[in-house]
């Protein structure tokens, strides 16, 4: 298991605080659910912006934060313009800092670093290689 530095721990805590603050202005009307592509398919509150807001407000880190297309449809239907995607990104960043990111994402980044392809296969067609910091 990756050792987490104190700086990362503090940074993650700050990010969760900021994510939770973004939802301070959410009035929980639920209108964000109407246009959320993920909610409309999976139909569980946790996938909606309001559901994620409930988690982030309670500083709960769950992999469901990665189940969001960041398409901003929820922000458009939010009468108060809550910056949901910003909050979700902060939540994800905090999780990654604490070594709680998605295994699939870590593998993809590893592949890009190693081979230049997210799938890990060396490009035979001479396609442009991807880079990751």
């Amino acid at each position, binding site marked *: 298991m990756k050792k987490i530095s104190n700086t990362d721990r503090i940074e993650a805590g700050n990010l969760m605080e900021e994510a939770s603050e973004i939802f301070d*202005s959410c*009035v*929980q*009307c*639920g*209108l964000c*659910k*109407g*246009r959320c592509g993920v909610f409309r398919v999976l*139909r*569980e*509150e*946790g996938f*909606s912006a*309001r*559901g*994620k807001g*409930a*988690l982030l407000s*309670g500083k*709960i880190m*769950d992999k*469901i934060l990665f189940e969001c297309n960041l398409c901003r449809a929820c922000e458009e*239907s*939010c*009468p*108060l313009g809550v910056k949901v995607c910003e909050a979700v990104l902060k939540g994800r960043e905090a999780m990654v800092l604490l070594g709680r990111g998605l295994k699939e994402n870590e593998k993809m980044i590893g592949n890009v670093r190693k081979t230049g392809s997210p799938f890990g296969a060396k490009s035979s067609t001479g396609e442009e290689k991807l880079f990751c910091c």
Partner: protein
Amino acid sequence: MRKNLLKSYESDASRLKGKALDVFCPRNVDEVRDVVLKNDRVVIRGAGTGLAGGAVPQGEVVLDLSRLTGVSNFDEGRKTIEVEAGVVLDDLQDYLRGSDLEFPVKPSSHAVATIGGMIATDAVGSRGVKYGRTSTWVKWVEVMDSMGGLEKKGVTEMSDYAGMEGITGVIVRACLKLSGIKERSASVIRLGDLDEVVNLVRRLKQRRDVSMIEFLDRAVSKGVGFGDGYHLIVEYESDDGSLKGEDYEKVMGIRDGIYPFLAGKGYIRIEDPKIMIDRFPKLMSWLESKGVPTFGHIGVGILHPCFNVEQEKSIPEMMKLVKRLGGQVSGEHGIGILKRGFVEVNDQKILWNVKKRTDPMGKFNVGKVI
């Protein structure tokens, strides 16, 4: 459900907080039955847009019906359609697009509210002046009782379920009546005082083409950008309104956003007293004296005063005034948890009798309404 995720089910649009033991999201009626049979106490949930806390669990499991989205037996000739409880109103309207029909009741939460939730609260909404309550447009409901039994209930038994906020059983399916789609336009009318409002509302109600009369007090009018004075948003099922096409859509969008706008300013607690139009100025004067911004479906006498935290303590006083003026404490949002204390003793007795008859085991929505 993963423990972490229960948090997103522990509240609804009322913002009351509760505690969920677990959450189930069945995909079909058999799975609903499974949840009902395996749990002693169940809180039923649609989209969770209710404003009285009806879907907020208090240590029970939550039965979320959002995945029951089947639509069947659309009969254009008879103007009926069968829908499962989790179908969202706007999705139903999308489904009907291409035909000449629509479901005419329109709560401002139409983009997310489920048909099950609308029947359970007997939602009214802004077109109430022409189309009445949701139950007016329901031919039958199919209801699951605490033993998992399914039964269709027609118009004569509808009042045991419509408006009962889930305390009597789970509505799993309904047959809805539809209405012909109309060309619509709207006008925003500025008025100087409350008597003018009353007079105009009376006149508008005489017209058959008026399908919405929405009131905005001075504070709300200013807040949404209409300027000074009181305002009425009037929807016409003709081209008599001055706003058409995109302008019409824009004003409807403004109307739907009023509550979230006020809630965002701290006026979070929305109430829904219903009052006769001639008594409305008295109630309004009281609300204005307390600085409570108010809007609502004045065409059917339902007002939505919105209170901030400091003003909340004056709600019982408002309820007393409403009753003194011959009104009802809840015109459309229901009683849920928030308004239990305001139900008259006689009404409580009637509700308990219905509850005992329909849910003798006391399984559904315990601690709600009564």
